[in-house]
C-alpha cells in the first residue's frame, strides 16, 4: 500500500453526473412512447438523427479542444440535449433541420460558452428557438396525431417517413393545426362549441387529441425523477402551479374570450416536457430553493402570456425558458439563503465584514 494523501470526505454518495443524465433519459421514455404512438415513426427518426448529430458534434468539439472525448461523452449530457431537441421538433421534419438544431445546441449554445456547466442558456431551447425563428414553416407543420386520423388513413410508413425526411416527398393530408393554435385563433365560439366542432378536441379525452397522453407520459417520467431525487420539486411544481393559477384566472367560464381551462394548459403543448425536463435543467436555472420557486413561477406565467397573447408561435416554453435563463443570475442575487449564524442573507456584492448579529 502506498500511503496516498486524499482529502476528505473519503466516501461519496452513489449518484454520478453520468448516472443522473441516464436517469433523465430513462424518464423521457414514457413521453417518447406516447409520441411514437400518436405520431409514428417520424419521432424515432428525429431521435436517432438528433442523437447521432449531437454526440458527433460534442465529440468533434472535444477533439478540437484536446479533451479526452470518451470521458466527456460518458456524462451523457449531449444525449439529453439531443432527446429534448428531438421531441421538440415536429416529426417528419427535414433532416437538415435536426442537424442544424444539433449544431446550434451543442456547438453554439453549449461548447462555445465553455461546455458542460458553463452554458447560460438551455442548449435544446436555444436550438429550438433559433430554428423556429429561421424556419417557421417547417417548425410549425405538426403531424396529425393518430387519434384524429380519418378512417382509412394510417400513420406514414417507415419508407414514406424516410422519403419525407431526406427528400422532402410530401405526405398528403398529414398535417394539422394543434389544439393550442385552435384555441388562439378562436374568438367567436364559446369553448363548448369549439370542443364540439374541432376534431382535435373531440377526439381527445380532456385536453386534446394525442397531446394529453404525451403530457401524461412526461409527467410520469418527471415524477420518477422527483422520486429519484434527481432534482427538487421547487421549479417544476411552481411552474405548473403558476400556469394553473393564471389560466384559472383568465378561464372566464369557457366564454369565447376564454383562453382555455387550466387542465387544457397543463396537458397540451410541451407543458410537462418543459416542467420536468427543461425548467429543471440545473445549469441554466436559478440556484437556491427560493430562487427556483421564483424561476419556475415566472416561466409558468410567461408561457401563458405567450400562448394567449403572443403572435403566431405554437408554444411558449422555449421563449419562456430562455427569458428566465437571462433572469436567473438576477434571481440568484436576491434569493441568497441566510447562512447559519447570520441575521439576514448577504448579497453577492456585499463586501462588508461578516455580520454576526442576531
Amino acid at each position: 500500500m502506498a500511503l496516498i494523501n486524499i482529502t476528505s470526505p473519503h466516501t461519496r454518495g452513489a449518484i454520478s453526473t453520468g448516472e443522473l443524465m441516464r436517469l433523465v433519459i430513462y424518464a423521457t421514455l414514457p413521453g417518447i412512447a406516447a409520441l411514437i404512438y400518436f405520431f409514428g415513426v417520424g419521432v424515432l427518426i428525429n431521435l436517432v438523427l438528433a442523437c447521432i448529430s449531437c454526440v458527433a458534434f460534442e465529440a468533434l468539439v472535444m477533439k478540437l479542444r484536446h479533451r479526452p472525448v470518451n470521458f466527456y461523452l460518458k456524462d451523457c449530457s449531449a444525449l439529453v440535449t439531443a432527446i429534448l431537441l428531438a421531441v421538440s421538433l415536429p416529426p417528419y421534419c427535414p433532416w437538415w433541420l435536426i442537424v442544424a438544431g444539433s449544431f446550434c445546441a451543442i456547438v453554439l449554445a453549449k461548447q462555445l460558452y465553455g461546455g458542460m456547466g458553463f452554458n447560460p442558456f438551455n442548449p435544446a431551447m436555444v436550438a429550438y428557438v433559433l430554428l423556429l425563428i429561421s424556419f417557421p414553416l417547417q417548425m410549425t407543420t405538426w403531424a396529425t396525431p393518430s387519434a384524429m386520423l380519418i378512417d382509412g388513413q394510417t400513420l406514414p410508413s417507415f419508407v414514406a417517413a424516410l422519403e419525407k425526411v431526406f427528400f422532402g416527398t410530401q405526405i398528403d393530408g398529414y398535417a394539422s393545426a394543434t389544439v393550442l393554435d385552435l384555441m388562439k385563433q378562436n374568438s367567436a365560439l364559446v369553448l363548448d362549441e369549439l370542443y364540439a366542432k374541432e376534431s382535435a378536441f373531440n377526439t381527445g379525452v380532456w385536453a386534446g387529441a394525442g397531446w394529453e397522453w404525451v403530457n401524461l407520459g412526461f409527467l410520469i417520467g418527471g415524477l420518477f425523477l422527483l422520486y429519484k431525487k434527481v432534482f427538487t420539486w421547487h421549479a417544476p411544481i411552481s411552474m405548473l402551479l403558476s400556469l394553473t393559477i393564471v389560466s384559472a384566472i383568465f378561464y372566464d367560464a369557457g366564454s369565447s374570450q376564454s383562453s382555455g381551462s387550466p387542465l387544457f394548459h397543463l396537458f397540451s403543448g410541451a407543458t410537462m416536457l418543459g416542467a420536468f425536463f427543461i425548467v429543471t435543467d440545473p445549469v441554466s436555472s436559478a440556484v437556491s430553493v427560493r430562487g427556483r420557486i421564483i424561476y419556475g413561477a415566472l416561466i409558468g406565467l410567461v408561457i401563458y402570456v405567450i400562448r394567449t397573447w403572443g403572435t403566431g408561435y405554437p408554444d411558449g416554453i422555449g421563449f419562456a425558458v430562455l427569458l428566465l435563463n437571462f433572469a436567473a443570475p438576477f434571481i440568484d442575487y436576491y434569493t441568497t439563503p441566510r447562512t447559519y449564524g447570520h441575521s439576514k442573507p448577504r448579497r453577492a456584492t456585499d463586501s462588508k465584514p461578516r455580520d454576526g448579529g442576531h
Partner: protein
Amino acid sequence: MTSLIPIWELPGGIHPTENKTQSLQLPIGYLPLPPQLVIPLNQHLGKPAHPVVQPGDRVLKGQLIAAAEGTFSANTHASTSGTVIAIADQNIPHASGMTAESIVIEPDQKEEWINLETCEDYLQQDRLVLLDKIRAAGVAGMGGAGFPTAVKLAPKSTQVIDTLVINGAECEPYITADDILMQERADQLIEGVLLTSHILHHPKNILIGIEDNKPKAIAAVKAAVEIAQQTNPEAANIKVVSFPTKYPSGGAKQLIYILTGREIPSGHHSADIGVICVNVATTIAAWRAVRFGEPLISRITTLVGEALSEQRNMELLLGTPIDYVLQQQGFDAKRASRVIMGGPMMGFTLPALNVPVIKTTNCLLAPTAKELPLPDPAQACIRCGLCAEVCPANLLPQQLFWYAQAEDFDRLESHNLFDCIECGACSYVCPSSIPLVQYYRAAKGSIRQHLIEKEKSDRSRQRFEFRKERLAKEEAEKEAKRLARQKAAEEAKKQLADKQAAAPVPAQIVDPTKVAAPELSPDEQKAKLERLVAAAKNALEFAQKPLVSRDPKNKPITEEQLEKQAARIKQAELKLSEAENKLAEFLAQAPAQAATPTTSAAPADDPVAAAIARAQAKMNLSPTDKLKADLESLQTRLQKAQEKVEAAKTEGSSNLDALQQGAEKLQQKIEQTIASLKELGIDASAAPVVSEPEKSAAELAIEKAKAKAAALATMSDDEKRAEQRKSLEDRLQKARERLVKAEAENDANVEVFRSSVEKLEIKLKGM
C-alpha cells in the same frame, strides 16, 4: 422523558452508510505497552506546551513532562513510567505530514504512577480549584478540535450560561468511540456532567444529545441518570435527548441548534448565546482529573476498516505509535487503500504511519479499496444544487466553488466562506465528484495568507509613512526654530536700536508691537526711520565721547573702559548701519520720495581704528590683565545677553529659554574667570563686577539714562524715587494692558506676560 423535549431539525445534512456495527462487537480493549511513546507537545489547540524534563530523566506515569504555555495551552504528561530518551521533532498526525517537538519515552514496563491527589467532595469545592485541577490534568476537547477544557469551562462573566450540552452525537460513519464509552462508562459520564454543571453555576438546562442510532448508549445513559438521581437531586435535571441520525449533527453548532434552536452568531462562541457544549469523552476525562487527579494520558480510539483483522475500540495511551497499533490489530497493508485518522467524512489520510495517537485521535480507519474506493476524477459542475440542499450552514457551495476557482476572494467572503464547517456533505453528494471542501480549505488558507500579508505590508507602509512624517516634522521644527531665532534676533536688534535711540529718555520701554505697527503712513514711516538713524548717530556720538575725553583720575580701569567703549561704539555703529539700511530700503521701496538724507554718513574708519586700538591694547596686556580683560568682555557679553533676555521676556519670544541658557553659561564663564583671577591673587570683586542680572540691567538702564540722571541730579532722593515709581507704574500699566490683550487673543505667551506683570508688581512693592 425524551419524547417531551423539543428538537429542531438540522437544515441539509446527509445519511451516509453508518458502518458502526463492526467496531461494536467487542468491548473496550487494551494494548500491551509499545516499545516507545512519542508524545507531541501540540496535541491541543493553542500554544505548544514547553518541556519540563530533560533527556535521560526517569519519569513516572502521569508525571508532568511539558507545561502549558500560557492560558490557551494544555499540560502534557507521561503516559507511562520510563526514561525520556529524546526531546526532538517527530512526525505528528497531521494532513500535511509535518513534524513537531515531541518527548520520546522508553517505557520501563513498571507502570509506576506518581502520587495522585484524589478528591471526593468536589461538588463542595470552589469552582476555581476544580478548574485548576482540570487545567493541571491537561484535559483538551477530545471530539476533534482539542480546545483546552479549563478555558472552555471558564466563560467570561458577561456570558450567562443557561444550557450545558453534552455532545454524544458522534455522527461520523465508522466511529464508535463515544458510543462504547457511553455504554460502558455512563455512570462516570453522569458524574462528569454534574461536575461540569457545578463548575458552570448549575445551568438551567442540561442536555445530553445522542443520535438515535445508538440505542444501547441512550439506554445506558438514561439508566445512569436514574441511579444518580438517588444521590444527587440535580441529576433529575439532566435530559437525555435522542434525535434522528443525520450527518453532521455532531458539530457543536449543529448540535446546539438541534437541541436548543439557537444559532451561534457568525464569529462568536457558543458561550455568547449561553450554551457550553462538551464532548462525552472530555466530560469523563475532566471528571477523572478532579475525582482521581488523573491527567489525560489515554483515550478510546475506534480501530476499524476491512484492512484490520480485528475491528474494535481500544483505550490507547497517548503517544502510542500508530504503526504499532495497526500492527497489533492485524493490519494488512496490501489490502488497505489508505489510513485515515478520524472518520470518512472529515478525517485526513496519514502520510506516514510512524505518528503517535494524540488527544484528538478518535478513530483510525484502514479501509480496503473496495470499502472506500478512490474518488472519480472531477467533472464539470452542472449546478445541480444538491450541495446547497445538504449544506448544514445554508451556504451556496457551488457558488463558493465557482469563486474559489476564480480566486475571487471578495465574493467568497461575501458568500460567507468562513461559516463553512468543512463537514464534506457537499462533496459527498456532488455527482461530478468535485472535491469541494478542499477548494474551500485552500481558499480559506489563501485568504488568511492574504490577510497576513496585507497586515504585514500595511504595517511596514505605516511605519514608512510615520518615519517620513516624523522626519518632515523634525525638519519643519528645525526650520521653525531657525526662523524664530532669526526673527527674535532681528527684533532684539530693533529693540536695542530703539533703546539706543531712546537713550536720552531711558526709562521708557519701547513696545515692539508699536514699533512694528504696520498702519503707519509711508511719510510717517520715513520720518520714523530717519529719526531712528538720527538717534543711532546720536548714540554713536555719545558712545564715542568718553573715549575722547578720558577721565585722567581713574587710570587703573582705563583699559577696561576702553574695551567697554569699543564694544559700545561697535554696537552703536551696528545700530546705525542697520537703521540706515532700513531707511535706504524704505526709500528704495518708495522711490517717489527722492530725498536720500544721511546715507553713508557713518564714519567707516572708526570701527577699524577702534579694533586696531583694542588689539594693540590687548597685545600689551599681562596675563592678569588679560584675564581681567576677558572678564570685562565676558561681562559685557553677559550684559548684552541679559538685555536680550529682557527683550525676549517682554515680547514673549519663544527662544527665551535659549537666551537664558546663554546668559547662564556666560555667568558660569565669568565665575571661572574670577576663580582664575583669584588664583593669580587678585580679588575680582575689586573689579566692577556686575553679576546679578536684575541689578546689571538696572545699572545699564541707569547708565544709558545718564543724560536724564544728570537732569535729575538736582532732584532730592524722594523726588527721584517718586519719578522711578512713576515710571515703574507706567511700565506695570502697559504690561497689564498687554496681558489683557494677550488673554483676549488667547495668545500663547500669556504666561510670560503674566510673570512680567508679577515681577513689576514685586519691584514696585519693594520701592
